[in-house]
């Protein structure tokens, strides 16, 4: 009902005219061959700071032993493609890519599916300290501590990433509000947690998959005085870890639904666990769990 009738009539009239015009246009314009690139990216061949808006691309792999960030994004309006290369650290130091506080509107894009180019073997693979970024299309694995860290990175979007075999956690969302993770998120075989919501609020985890993580596939915890509240876990596939989803005491108003935890190769503690009495204000519904703690409020 939002569309006005007169708008619709105008639209229909225009469409009739448009059809004739465009059909004629289509007939007149021959098929053109595939085109060469016109907007050339700035190529990155070594660790550097990016402080100017623009389009950047890592086309060949960069290997470094830096103890700081390798790619340090300090300017706003940066789009970084890592499709052609990747970053590899020394196994314990530095950060592969850091989006510094103040770098607004960053887009990091690798391949168009999980398992893309690596950001591997640093202390932290990718860290965002700003928020509002779109981070997708690569693998952040074998880092000493964390694959991807969002720290006060409100409103980030993460999609199409793999974070596996990191020392402590795959994706750590710390004191961040409104992050959204969707589409092809694989978080496997990390030392402690797969996904860690740590004083995070209003996070959407949509169709994430986590398996084989050391302690817990998805940990929802309180960081100091900051609880993890009002997060929504939807349709997560969590398996082969001692714990599937754990909500620690003090974190409330979280919803966990349509989530499954199965194939427990480990001596499983619980598929779903809530440390709050009677789950507090957390709501668990329409899940597929076999082991629940407590059973009275996890469904």
């Amino acid at each position, binding site marked *: *009902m939002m*569309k006005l009738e007169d708008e619709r009539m105008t639209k229909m009239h225009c469409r009739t005219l448009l059809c004739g015009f465009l059909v004629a246009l289509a007939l007149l314009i021959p098929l053109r061959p595939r085109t060469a690139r*016109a907007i050339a990216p700035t190529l990155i061949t070594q660790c550097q700071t990016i402080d100017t808006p623009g389009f950047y691309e890592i086309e060949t792999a960069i290997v470094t032993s830096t103890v700081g960030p390798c790619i340090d994004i300090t300017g706003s309006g940066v789009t970084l493609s890592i499709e052609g290369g990747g970053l590899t650290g020394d196994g314990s130091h530095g950060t592969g890519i850091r989006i510094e506080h103040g770098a607004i509107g960053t887009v990091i894009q690798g391949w168009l599916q999980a398992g893309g180019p690596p950001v591997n073997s640093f202390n932290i693979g990718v860290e965002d300290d700003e928020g509002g970024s779109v981070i997708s299309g690569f693998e952040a694995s074998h880092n000493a501590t964390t694959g991807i860290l969002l720290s006060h990175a409100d409103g980030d979007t993460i999609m199409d990433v793999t974070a596996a075999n990191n020392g402590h956690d795959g994706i750590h969302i710390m004191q961040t509000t409104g992050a959204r993770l969707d589409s092809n998120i694989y978080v496997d075989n990390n030392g402690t947690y797969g996904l860690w919501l740590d004083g995070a609020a*209003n996070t959407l985890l949509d169709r994430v998959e986590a398996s084989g993580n050391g302690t817990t596939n998805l940990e929802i915890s309180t960081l100091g005085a900051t609880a993890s509240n009002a997060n929504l876990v939807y349709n997560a596939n969590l398996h082969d870890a001692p714990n599937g989803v754990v909500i620690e005491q003090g974190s409330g108003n979280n919803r966990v639904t349509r989530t499954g935890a199965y194939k427990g190769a480990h001596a499983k503690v619980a598929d779903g666990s809530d440390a709050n009495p009677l789950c*507090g204000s957390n709501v*668990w519904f329409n899940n597929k769990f076999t082991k629940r703690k407590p059973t009275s409020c996890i469904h």
Partner: protein
Amino acid sequence: MSISTSRLSRWVVALPVAASLAFSSSVGAVTFKPIKKCGTISTAGYYKVTKTLTFQGSGACLVIAADNVTLNIDGHSLKSSGGGTGISITGANAFVDFNDGTVTGFAIGIEDDGSGAVVQNFTSSNNTDTGIYVNGASGSTFGGFGANNNTNHGIHLRRANNNILHNMALKDNGSFGLWAELSSNNVINNFVANNNGIAGVYFGCSSSGPAGGGPACAGANSGSNVVTSTGDDNNGFYGLAIDLDSEANVIDGAEQSNNNGADDSYDANTNCGTNLWFNETHGTTNQPCTRE
């Protein structure tokens, strides 16, 4: 256009959903209140549709007017004989899980005028205008859905910012699979937009698309959106089209098979302006600023 207060008051009537309660199902400390007829949800809480809902008129079948509503459609259908809106979201932070439910036969299947909504797992089809109308909403997420066979558009974003649309099929709509109008900073990924009358995806302000009389809102258009992993084929004229003054959009991974009526990829801005096109596969384009 927003629903005016006076207009809203005519159709956000009467029967609050609570009046249709018969039994409530408890989950832990919360209660899912059953919904058996169209109405307005005016209180935060948990609700569950328990049967097919049919609708006649020009209002909305379900109105989510309160903030923090969780609504499980539970696989049911919302049907109209040809008018109105299936679900109208005006509150903030709604979570609507259709669980394979459908919304059909309305003018607009789902309208989001709120913020922070999460709407999942549905099909919005055969509506007489638009499948999903995101009207001024921000921070909403729509995932795992189809918007097909709607008379005009599968999805229409208007003055809608910071939303995510993902894992979707937008097919056989009369004009656009997805139309972003005056909308920015949205992320649109993992989708197909095929067999739509004008274009699979269109960023611009003309309801007739590019060259349809020129952009109606030059200087204030759709910018800074990110589109990834899309296939846009067999559309009437364009696979993916960006009209004049829609700038700073990132198009990554659009695959088109040289079977759209005019151009697979189209950008009306000179040398694509500040739009970035990469990982592009297409047969035809209107200018050499897309790259493969």
